[in-house]
């Protein structure tokens, strides 16, 4: 019952709202699909979509790769105590607002990141003022937050692989790269799928990092200089709650949902839909690549 009110009802209501033009105070005006039409012509919206994809790609791909390597290294070590686990997981449970504030100071013009660069003789980077600086800083924050989490998930997957498989690989004279690609990855597929799907869902909903990071800068709009840090959810928030265009915000919510749904299906097909090597997929590609290296 409670669930119906707060879980299902908002979804239905959201469809209704997205067909209205409403500032939250006056009367609603039915506009049909016009909100969606306006949205598709809104260059800021497309910019936010592009930014979100770029940040998602810059963060998810290195993060999953690092997590896999990390898990593999941890697995070959016998001693892996609870202290390490906690250390790996703690970035994930700490408040994003607080850590964004910390990273904001690290990436500031006179901050730690540039001080390190200066110490090794490289010019400082406009981490929070240039296009790729902004995207890299946001991505680095996401990587830091999720790499340990995914490494622990992968590690659990690794530990579920029977030791005999590793021994058999060793007896056959496989090196560690061959073991990784031919023994570990095929068996890790469900876990990789889980990690890829959750990372995508989270990655496409980035909000806090960009919002907190550029809240204080005086460029007039949210999303930082040139709005390079503007993400879909940040734009949704700005339109709905700063400019009180509730219908527009609701419509954007649905477009976001559609994007996430499409990506989830693609992920699913890439990772799970490759039961044989004829059909292309990440796992299949990796396996074939591994086979080539093996010869």
């Amino acid at each position, binding site marked *: 019952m409670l669930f119906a009110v707060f*879980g299902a009802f908002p979804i239905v209501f959201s469809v209704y709202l997205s067909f209205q033009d409403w500032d939250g105070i006056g009367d609603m005006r039915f506009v049909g699909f016009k909100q969606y039409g306006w949205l598709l012509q809104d260059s800021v919206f497309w910019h936010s979509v592009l930014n979100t994809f770029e940040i998602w790609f810059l963060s998810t791909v290195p993060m999953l790769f690092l997590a896999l390597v990390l898990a593999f290294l941890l697995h070959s070590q016998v001693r892996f105590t609870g202290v390490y686990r906690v250390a790996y997981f703690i970035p994930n449970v700490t408040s994003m607002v*607080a850590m964004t504030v910390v990273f904001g100071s690290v990436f500031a013009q*006179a901050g730690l990141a540039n001080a390190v660069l200066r110490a090794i003789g490289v010019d400082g980077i406009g981490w929070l003022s240039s296009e790729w600086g902004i995207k890299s800083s946001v991505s680095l924050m996401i990587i830091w937050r999720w790499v340990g989490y995914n490494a622990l998930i992968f590690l659990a997957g690794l530990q579920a692989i029977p030791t005999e498989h590793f021994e058999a690989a060793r007896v056959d004279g496989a090196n560690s790269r061959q073991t990784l690609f031919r023994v570990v990855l095929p068996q890790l597929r469900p876990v990789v799928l*889980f990690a890829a799907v959750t990372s995508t869902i989270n990655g496409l909903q980035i909000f806090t990092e960009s919002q907190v990071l550029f809240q204080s800068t005086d460029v007039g709009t949210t999303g930082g200089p040139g709005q390079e840090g503007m993400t879909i959810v940040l734009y949704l928030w700005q339109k709905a709650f700063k400019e009180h265009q509730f219908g527009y*915000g609701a419509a954007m*919510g649905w477009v976001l949902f559609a994007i996430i749904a499409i990506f989830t299906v693609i992920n699913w097909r890439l990772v799970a839909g490759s039961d044989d090597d004829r059909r292309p997929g990440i796992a299949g590609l990796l396996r074939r690549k591994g086979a080539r290296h093996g010869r």
Partner: protein
Amino acid sequence: MLVSLFPFYWLVVLASGTTQDIYRYPPKLLPGPHLLDNMGRVLDTVDFFGSLFNTVVVAVLGTVLVLFFDSLAAFAFAKYEFPAKKFLFGMLLVTYMIPAQLSLVPQFVTMAEFGWAGSLKALIIPSAANAFGIFWMRQYAQNSLPDELLDAGRIDGAGFFRLYWTVALPLFRPALAFLGIFTFIGLWNDYIWPLVVMIDPDEVTLQVALANLNVLYNTDYSLVMAGALMSVIPLILVFLIGARHFLRDLAAGAMKM
């Protein structure tokens, strides 16, 4: 591991130095002597304990409600037959997959209609039943709750609610521990929803208070950092206490997917 912990160390360094230190080159890499000083200034600037209190109330009450409703619904889904069960469970799965941001606008409008916007109710009640928790608990209930136990309870004349309370709930304990920590952390750290719905600037949660502090005093780094440190410490303590349970079940949960 060093990378993972370094930002926390750096937070302590920044929070215990002065604002001038932060812009110095080469940077100071060791904690300074001004920590208590800076924390004192945080207490003078914002209503830290007020927002801490709000956050604790929301996280504790929200978690209790989630544990209660989710386990109750999961118990019913796992062990009972009722009309439209399949349909309801399907609805549940659909909402599980829909991003929370989709319901941001309608949820806010609903809260405003109820007159709850700006009150802690708006942070607690809507989160009281969530699809993930019901789904997770149901999986657990199916595997860990033998039908014989329930039958034995029925012979003793126990009804639905007594069976839930005396037979099912004690057996759910490990799953409840995980879901509890998970929910608590989520409610504690939630930012976008309190930012949107807590329209009275004097009644906010820790996260929103910190973000406001960051905007208003963005030139006073050491003050903001001390605030960040103070907002992070309570949750880290909670996590360290429950960590062992949580990490084991988290990995197990991912494996089942």
